[in-house]
């Protein structure tokens, strides 16, 4: 096994726990994009260019876009329900004041 392959295997073995132990999903997304690029590099070195092409496109474009959109939806929804609660509280206070 060449040094490049050994180095990439070790890099992936360290990158996996790095993605898992990062708790914030936003930072995890960026980390998984970098991990996917390292994986694509390993696929190139293992003489698999088709798989590397697939992996680059999917793991840096497709998956992070979907995760970020899901996170955006969750955040918007939280703001909306927060606003709804405040409105309800304000309107009930107004009724009691009359």
């Amino acid at each position: 096994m060449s040094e490049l392959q050994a180095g990439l295997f070790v890099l992936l073995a360290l990158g996996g726990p790095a993605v898992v132990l990062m708790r914030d999903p936003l930072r995890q997304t960026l980390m998984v994009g970098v991990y996917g690029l390292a994986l694509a590099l390993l696929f190139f070195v293992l003489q698999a260019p088709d798989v590397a092409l697939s992996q680059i496109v999917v793991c840096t474009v497709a998956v992070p876009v979907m995760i970020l959109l899901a996170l955006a939806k969750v955040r918007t929804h939280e703001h909306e329900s927060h606003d709804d609660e405040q409105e309800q509280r304000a309107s009930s206070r107004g009724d009691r004041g009359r």
Partner: protein
Amino acid sequence: MSVLAYGTAGWLFLVGLYGIVSSRNLIGMVICLSIVQSSTYVLLLSIGYRRGAAAPIFADIPPGSRAVDPIVQALTLTDVVVEATVVALLLALAVQAHKRFGTLDPNELTPLRG
């Protein structure tokens, strides 16, 4: 040498499973699932590798020269794209769970009552 290659695949599988079990956020759980998937790709391609061989593309090397295994590459290739759509399905589940329960914490999700 083989220990490093196959051991990385096994190690990534276990690390990803630990991430799924101990995650506090549904979306983080989905990201750890993609780590588990990547461990299978590493294992498949490590099995099919031959030392000193070229990629199985015979456009510029004569057919019959030493090349790596094309079948495991075909399996991994379709797998990478299809698993992305499965990840999308799981993310949609997470978004709907958040709408229903107001939280993304798997410990707080209560079972549905009839």
